[in-house]
């Protein structure tokens, strides 16, 4: 029997509310398939499967709040039958407060008698809205919770819940970062003239909707630099560094209602620029719509933040644990620049690195930033796929 558990999608997630199942008993799961939509404090996230097998039982009801690690569903291993799943007792890691009201039909006998009366349409709607039925008072006959009760509760809860939860989550993750990670910070100015000229030329031939932004060049350059300096790309868990096999920079995207999310751009080092641009636009759109996939939240290997749009010249970030580095970009400014003994005016951007001193030292950090700077001086080379690599 395979236990499908609620994964942690980041250091700042310790619980989630099931919004909707995307599978039902009898479905054959493949790896990467979306199993459920779970509301975290940041977004409604599509949870993907990392197992293969037949879905035997769903153990959690929409609307139920569960801690990370809760067994959400049982999958059959080859040779097992539904009857095995019926008999199977998952590890008791269900929340202690998994009460009769929200736990649903998998509870047996006497508990069923105490099951709270919720009309079918109200239960379904509560699931869709991510409303915990425990907190909803029923106005129907004998206190039955009706659709109207759920919608009233949703109206009261919706506007403030997520930002509050997100603030709390960010606070927890950043406190942990500053408590555990010995940060060091480096900065390096990057001349941007070549990159901007190349972009202008490149974009002249492109329709407005397909134009490349400087952000894409920077992301690609970071990704390529990380291939040379892998000690900035990975996670620090249980006292040791685990370099990542892929380069998946998490792109910090701020939300209109406050807070931010840094979902992963997968394999940024292997993508052509137009592809990366499309992925980035798509990611921003989905972040704002609150629709992300679980792998995008759990598999980023470094964070890249750009606060140039906000007008700051440089940014020194706080590492998102368990990652080990964060690259920050400020605004492109025109500065006096010495070149060949003369003072000229150049467009310059400040790149910064915040890195984990348990994993790397300032010397390597400096080399990394220098590599980043040099890569930005050959923008045309950034568009090419890396040579000698298997796709």
């Amino acid at each position: 029997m395979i236990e499908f558990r609620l994964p942690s999608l980041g250091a700042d997630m310790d619980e989630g509310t099931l919004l909707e199942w995307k599978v039902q008993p009898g479905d054959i799961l493949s790896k990467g398939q979306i199993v459920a939509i779970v509301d975290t404090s940041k977004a409604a996230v599509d949870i993907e499967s990392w197992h293969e097998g037949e879905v035997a039982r769903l153990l959690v009801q929409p609307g139920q709040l569960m801690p990370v690690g809760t067994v959400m569903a049982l999958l059959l291993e080859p040779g097992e039958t539904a009857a095995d799943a019926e008999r199977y007792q998952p590890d008791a890691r269900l929340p202690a407060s998994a009460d009769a009201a929200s736990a649903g039909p998998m509870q047996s006998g006497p508990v069923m008698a105490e099951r709270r009366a919720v009309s079918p349409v109200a239960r379904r709607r509560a699931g869709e809205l991510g409303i915990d039925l425990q907190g909803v008072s029923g106005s129907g006959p004998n206190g039955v919770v009706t659709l109207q009760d759920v919608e009233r509760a949703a109206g009261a809860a919706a506007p403030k819940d997520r930002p509050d939860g997100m603030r709390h989550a960010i606070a927890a993750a950043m406190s942990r970062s500053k408590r555990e990670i010995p940060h060091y910070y480096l900065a390096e100015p990057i001349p941007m003239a070549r990159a901007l000229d190349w972009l202008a030329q490149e974009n002249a031939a492109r329709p407005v909707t397909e134009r490349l932004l400087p952000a894409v060049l920077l992301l690609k350059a970071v990704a390529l630099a990380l291939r040379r300096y892998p000690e900035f790309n990975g996670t620090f868990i249980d006292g040791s560094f685990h370099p990542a096999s892929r380069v998946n920079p998490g792109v910090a995207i701020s939300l209109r209602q406050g807070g931010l999310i840094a979902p992963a751009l997968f394999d940024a080092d292997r993508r052509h620029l137009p592809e990366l641009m499309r992925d980035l636009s798509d990611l921003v759109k989905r972040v704002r719509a609150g629709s992300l996939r679980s792998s995008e939240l759990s598999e980023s290997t470094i964070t890249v933040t750009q606060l140039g749009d906000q007008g700051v010249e440089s940014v020194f970030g706080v590492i998102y644990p368990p990652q080990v580095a964060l690259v920050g970009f400020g605004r492109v400014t025109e500065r006096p620049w010495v070149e060949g003994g003369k003072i000229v005016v150049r467009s310059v951007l400040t790149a910064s690195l915040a890195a984990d001193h348990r994993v790397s030292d300032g010397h390597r950090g400096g080399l990394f930033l220098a590599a980043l700077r040099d890569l930005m001086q050959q923008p045309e080379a950034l568009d090419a796929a890396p040579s000698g690599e298997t796709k």
Partner: protein
Amino acid sequence: MSRRISYREALREGLREALLNDPRVLLMGEDVGRYGGTYAVSKGLLDEFGPDRIRDTPLSELAFVGAGIGAALGGLRPVVEVMTVNFSLLALDPIVNTAALYHHMSGGQFSVPLVIRMATGAGRQVAAQHSHSFEGWYAHIPGITILAPATVRDARYMLAPALSDPDPVLIFEHAALYNMEAELGDEEPVDIRSARLMRDGSDVALITYGGSLYKTLAAAEQLAMRGISAAVLDLRVLRPLDTGAIVALTRQCRRVVVVDEGWRSGSLAAEVMARIVEHAFYELDAPPARVCSEEVPVPYARHLEEAVLPQPEKIIAAVEALLGVSS
């Protein structure tokens, strides 16, 4: 131009039109000719169309319904009138065992284009034997179409599509409706497949048919005065049921009361509720409810008869129970 006519006159007009348009159409039954029909539906038709086409029959439902099946098989388009639904029990064998099955039993070689009309329902102090509502029974049988015209429009226009149907169609006319009058336009043809929304609403769906339609509409009117918005669906066709309309209205209102003059156990209301639960369970805010006749023979005494049948007050009480409000 719209005019005001009775349900009885509407039925007569429909029959007259059919007799005029198609020489194969004939009307047969007890007292349909010289007496003009027990409910005076066929009054005057004998004079106009003559004894070959308006035929009085002996008092044997078994014989004349069987004869109607033979006539239909022979190429005619008979309309057989059975005086009331209780007498149709004497013709159950030809209806259920022959008319409904012939198409199947002949391997599709023969169909039976027969229309049988009969009065149904209670409320007129004619005592237990003449107060039955067996249309729900007939709606159990595959191979026949069951119609329950509740409006003057349906009384006027349902006969034409019924006669066009290659298979048997049974039309149940609620006896309390014959004197009802309503405005009718010149041409308002109808189908015999769909239910019709008679009143829109958002809080509760009242699903009914036949003689209960007006009690249900009256209940909806009174509910509206209390701020409860009730939609009313006239099923019209009891077989095949318009499941789509039932489900759509359930989705819209989330609460349903089915009103059916039949007895509760095994009623048509039970079938409607089953479909709601099968197809719209997750749309429901409350268990489906029903108002049916009490499970006793329909009494003769007026006050007892009224107490046994669905009434607007019972419908209102059922709605209030679903909504958790009391008057």
